[in-house]
């Protein structure tokens, strides 16, 4: 689950970078970049959740 979250994060980055190439309008660019960052945050959340689940299984 942690790996899945970490692999989702670059997908958000690609969305943000695509906005630079595809749009010249600042509003559209900003909207896409914010969406990309939101996806990165989602991926980070999944990774953190994966860490918590792993901790629950292996208490030290």
């Amino acid at each position, binding site marked *: 689950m942690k790996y899945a979250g970490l692999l989702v994060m670059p997908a958000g980055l690609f969305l943000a970078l695509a906005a*630079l190439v595809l749009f010249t309008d600042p509003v559209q660019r900003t909207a896409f*970049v914010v969406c990309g960052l939101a996806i990165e945050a989602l991926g980070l959340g999944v990774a953190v959740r994966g860490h918590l689940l792993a901790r629950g299984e292996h208490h030290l």
Partner: protein
Amino acid sequence: MNPAAPIPDTLFALALGLLFLAPLAVAGVALINVGLGRSRSAAQTLLGNLAMVAVAVILFALVGSAFAGALPGGAGHILTLGGKPWNLLGAGPLLASGLSSAPLQSQLALFFEVAAVALLVLLPWGSGADRVGLLAGCGMAAVLAVLVFPVAAHWSWSGGWLGSLGANFSLGEGFLDPGGAATIHVLGGLAALAVVWIAGPRRGKFPKEGFSTAMPGHNAVYVLFGCLLALVGWQAFNAAGALIWLHAPLSALPQIALDTVLSASAATAATFAVTRSRFGKPDASLCANGWMAGLVASSAIASVAPPIGALFVGMVAGIATPLLVELFELALSIDDPSGAIGVHAIAGIWGLLAAGIFSPRPGQLLAQLIGIGVLLGFFLPLIYFLFLALNRFLPFRVDSDGERMGLDLHELGGGAYPEFVIHRDESYR
């Protein structure tokens, strides 16, 4: 940012003098790492700081600097996409050859990057304190100095695509990171998160039942003195960075210095107030973390924000720091003895965002957002998977006996304080 522009002799001398003071930031962070760890691992932690700096500086000077592209060499590895050049990797000389004949600006850039990589590698080491071995620490330093930092330094500072967002896409001045908030601190904080995830918590930190065990640092004096040392180093990094990467005039330096100390002071005052209201007394180690968070945030904003802005940015960083420590430990099961994830990664991201808010140039905030996206979306997964691979060959975590007896005895054969009684760890009962 335009790293290629020439620099006058007087500014060269000033920037060089400032860079001579930059290692004080390294010394400060090293002291903080030691003080926030346990007494039975103090010598191992400080030796680890030295060893990691040594490995990182040697490997960066010999190999990494070629990819960072501070010294003039080839044109760089450029991808053309959407009709725009994306400068992805430097193509400088290996072994820092030709340094003495390079332009003064390039010499300063290389020296700045060497000091930066030395500071960067200490951040994950503090988070892995009391459980990560020396060899693994050196391995981490090597990975960061050769594979990670050069890419980030090139993108932000040495003509890479992030720094060129202004020229290519009309986004302000491009990604602004003159003091290394992103390239040193966020990168180091994310590396700390990767280490904590891979190495796991200290033994007994999160018992199966009940709350997490408090494991306070063993020497608050080291920690607080480290903060004061770090201030000098930060002033040097922020001022030298503005001279080298932004070509700031001399008249800009007093405000940069003032912003740096204002941000740290506001952060400490805020942390002091928050910890006093929550616990009844101010917490020394959290106040130190607040100070450092203010310094980290200043690395991004010192060149662009007015003094009142620096106060605001520092205050937010200082309020967030103790809350983040609680969040990480109690809610997210993250055992980060030095607090590098909150202090360096989160405060650095906040500073980068604030730099976009305070900059008067249109598009600057978007450039900063894209830079933050790159740090989280590219560098965090990259560092995590590189460290995961490294962990297969050089296991990060020492064995449980070593952890129980303390890393000083386990790895060095002697303690840092041989004439003092080292108390038994209550968490092992």
